[in-house]
């Protein structure tokens, strides 16, 4: 039986070990990424690797501070902390310092703090506090409205401050709400909307509709297990498309092909919608509804983007999705990043032997693209180790969250796990060409004090809450 009174005996040492291991590996890789012949010492404090060591010690200090804080403090002051950081965030446009086009930093002496980083923790606390309150019911309007306000207010503010990367991280709270009882349909639709949106932006509406249509036929076939109906649907779709194609051919290609496929989609789904209503096939009607909705969504996104938005708004979205920000043409940075990782092979080129990252072929090699150095110098072994560490940490956090009897601790634990997961997924996905180039750091690896401290704070508040699991009953 652990000692209930000694917090050090109750903290989860597995989590702490993984945390320390990640920071150490991150530090070594920052050293390799920006290694400089003139400053060979890893303890050279004029260089990023020297500074990172200071940030790491400061982070450990923050961790110790959190562990020594009374766990009731976080529960009691969850809402005030949220409000204070929110106010700080509002002040950023007034007293902030602009770096890389985003005015999201506050300078205190020599230190730069990014309130949006700490907003993640504050929002997590507020969500946990609200969900764990007695009168909370997931599907009441009041509760959903309050939750939406807690999440969307900071998102809007951060978005206005040009820090789109940080803003979309908040979307991951949907996973937390799902765990706490939100209808899975919401998750499904959120996923669908994001997918259709990104597809439309990155490729175009025409191809998106093709993909949606083929997926629709496939899903229908899988659900019904009858190929005949799917074939009929495909036949109608195909013939409408072909008729238009022929007309267009006769008119010598004056019609935008988007119109053929749109008409084909609307006509064929219209016919099947009537068919499903007549035969009272509810599932089919829903499927067609979702399909048609997605198609129309894609077309309207395309329309709004090209015909209603101003150029600077378009640039923002393109930048967010990494479409136009590449100076050397689309995909240059991602390609260089893949070259760096791919050239590592199975065991890597060895410590300090990487060339692609060190010689600046990969941008932001110590911050957003730190995973490239891992891939280049430590190879497949290194990249799987890092992914393994992340999975170990995330699974451990879910396990810890689930073992807490306190709802507050559990919800907060899920917030921590999902935020870290989102960063992990987007950051690594971006370096290997599976996610859009959104500049968000890899937790505990990327260079930078502000992000390291905010992640430490986020994690150790939970470690502290978890250490108290025997005393807290419920909230």
């Amino acid at each position: 039986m652990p000692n209930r009174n000694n917090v050090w005996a109750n903290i989860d040492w597995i989590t702490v070990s993984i945390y320390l291991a990640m920071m150490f590996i991150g530090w070594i890789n920052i050293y390799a990424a920006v290694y400089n012949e003139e400053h060979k010492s890893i303890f050279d404090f004029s260089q990023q690797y020297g500074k990172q060591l200071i940030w790491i010690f400061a982070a450990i200090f923050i961790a110790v501070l959190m562990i020594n804080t009374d766990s009731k403090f976080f529960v009691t002051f969850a809402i005030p902390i949220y409000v204070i950081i929110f106010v700080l965030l509002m002040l950023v446009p007034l007293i902030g310092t602009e770096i890389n086009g985003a005015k999201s930093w506050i300078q205190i002496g020599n230190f730069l703090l990014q309130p949006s980083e700490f907003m993640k923790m504050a929002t997590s606390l507020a969500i946990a506090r609200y969900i764990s309150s007695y009168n909370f019911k997931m599907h009441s309007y009041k509760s959903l409205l309050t939750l939406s306000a807690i999440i969307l207010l900071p998102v809007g503010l951060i978005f206005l401050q040009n820090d789109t990367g940080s803003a979309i991280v908040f979307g991951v709270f949907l996973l937390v709400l799902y765990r706490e009882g939100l209808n899975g349909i919401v998750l499904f639709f959120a996923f669908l909307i994001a997918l259709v949106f990104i597809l439309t932006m990155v490729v175009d509406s025409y191809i998106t509709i093709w993909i949606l249509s083929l997926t629709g036929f496939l899903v229908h076939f899988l659900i019904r297990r009858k190929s005949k109906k799917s074939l009929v649907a495909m036949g109608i779709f195909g013939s409408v498309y072909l008729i238009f194609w022929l007309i267009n051919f006769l008119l010598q290609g004056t019609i935008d092909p988007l119109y053929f496929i749109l008409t084909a989609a609307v006509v064929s789904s219209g016919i099947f919608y009537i068919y499903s209503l007549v035969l009272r096939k509810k599932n089919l009607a829903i499927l067609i509804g979702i399909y048609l909705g997605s198609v129309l969504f894609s077309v309207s996104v395309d329309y709004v983007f090209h015909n209603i938005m101003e150029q600077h708004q378009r640039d923002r979205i393109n930048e967010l999705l990494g479409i136009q920000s590449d100076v050397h043409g689309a995909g240059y940075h991602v390609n260089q990043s893949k070259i760096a990782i791919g050239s590592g092979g199975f065991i890597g080129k060895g410590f300090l032997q990487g060339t692609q990252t060190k010689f600046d072929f990969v941008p932001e090699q110590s911050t957003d693209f730190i995973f490239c150095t891992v891939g280049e110098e430590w190879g497949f072994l290194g990249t799987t180790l890092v992914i393994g560490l992340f999975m170990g940490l995330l699974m451990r956090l879910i396990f810890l969250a689930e073992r807490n009897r306190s709802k507050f601790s559990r919800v907060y634990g899920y917030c921590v796990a999902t935020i870290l997961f989102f960063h992990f997924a987007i950051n690594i996905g971006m370096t290997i060409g599976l996610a859009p180039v959104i500049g968000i750091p890899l937790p505990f690896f990327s260079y930078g004090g502000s992000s390291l401290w905010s992640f430490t704070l986020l994690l150790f508040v939970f470690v502290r809450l978890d250490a108290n699991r025997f005393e807290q009953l419920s909230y």
Partner: protein
Amino acid sequence: MDTFSKRKYIVAGIMLGIAAIFILRLFTIQITNKTYKQFATRNVLRKIITFPARGFIYDRHKEMMVYNKAAYDLWVVPREVKPFDTTELCRIIQIERQDFRNALNKAKQYSRFKPSIIVGQISPEINAPLQEKLYKYPGFFTQSRTLREYPSKSAAQVLGYVGEVNQQMIEKDKYYRSGDYIGVTGLEKAYEKELRGIKGVTKSMVDVHNRIKGKYNEGLEDTTAILGQNLLTGLDAEVQAYAELLMTNKRGAIVAIEPATGEILLMVSAPSYDPNLLVGRQRSTNYGTLVGDSVNKPMWNRAGIGTFPPGSTFKLVNALIALQEHAVSPFDRFSCSGQSSSPIKCTHSHVSPLAMREGIRESCNSYFWNLFRNVINHSSTSAEGYEVWRNHVMNFGFGQKVGVELSSEVKGNIPQVTYYDKYFGQKKWNAMTIRSLSIGQGEIEVTPLQLANMAATIANRGYYITPHLVKAIQDTNRVYRELEYEKKVTGINPEYFDIVIEGMQAVIDETRLSQSVHMDSIVVCGKTGTVQNPHGADHSAFVAFAPKNNPKIAIAVFIQNAGFGATYAAPIAGLIMEKYLNDSIPPRKKDLERRMIETDLMNVIQVKK
């Protein structure tokens, strides 16, 4: 009570699913797909070429004919340039401000990080003050390169010139890269592989801005440049320059060969140019002027590519063939009626009838017509007789490239039987039809080089060594590697040469050439020729060798529109032989020398008399 507890599996499942996709993706790009490794190497590897100094060219006395002088290119890395005093820099390097600005803008457009040449080929005189001030111009630096220098300013067409490689050359030979230099004509072209040496390669790693970050693979794949090899030619630079001086304001060519070795002692084509004009910053302007001079064609090497009928100099070959074929004996006499001779009139006044020695001395057309007819008629048909004659002529090196290193050399023309068959009809021609050949006129065409080779062959009594410019190549260990050249035998019995050479001696000693060509201590043998020119004044030709026994020099001189061979070609040949054999011109020939130099034959009216 937590009814949604099972959802933890879905959340965890999503996370593990994404992780699995990542690992799969990493497996493909890091292990399965090998192309990323190649891309990575291509990204960082830059080859830096070190250029070896081009080999020197020496004359037969190891005097320098071509060497390298230092020049400097001014480079700029636009990114590193800070505001500077343009006027001062332009004044130092002597360039117009506008040109400088244009060059700088061009460099900026090319790359802000990579260096570009902004002013090329700066002379050492300009470079010295530039180096003192260069610290004031960050972003600029100089790099030395070598340029060709021709101290004797002579033998331009023989030595040739170097120029930048063009796209065709790059495609043909992978050794070259854009901006490299290559020999374009003359010896520079013929011995390009020996002269250029081998470029060295340093493989360096560079960053995304092309800045060097260190050696690739610890320098194990680097190679050092290997110096170009030096050429030792058979040319005599001093005599070459003297011959060019004599050819001032004349059109024509002179070739002299050392008979025993086949070494070309001098090869002059006039008008010529100073080879230094095709070096340095003024190169392109000068090149345009030289190529554009369609009247003088100074870039032409007339010695190897100019063809003309050999005229009376060819009578020597005819005499030798007749003797070999027993068509005449040295003592057979033929009569001459001077201007009224038939079928070829003889313009020379002399006693009649005459035998071979006098026939050569007087260059009697009637004599050689009779001799030639006997050769052709010696066989059963004219065609067969002609074929026998032609084979002998070819054995003297006519009608083919004699094989000097210059790629521009031409064959000349000794017509085949088929030519006459086609022109006159089979069996419808005979000695009479082709009688012009007896006196070296008609369809035959030879080059000055072939004519000099003929003189060498006679000097050798029946054979020649392939005429060549380069006798040895000095490798990087400073050891000379002698080159072997083929010996070619004419098939004419050496004893038949005696009477012909007697005749050639008589030409010098017993005619008016005893004043201009005859030497006090050395027996000279020669033969004049006057080449009929349907377009204007006749061309003047002369072949000779000396001394009579153990000859040291064989020479052919050909001067356009200069009239009788005895008037200009012979005295000039005499002076050159004098200079080569005795190293000086005797006082009694000083007047002659001055007259030869001063005579201007460039503007002789080009109309038939």
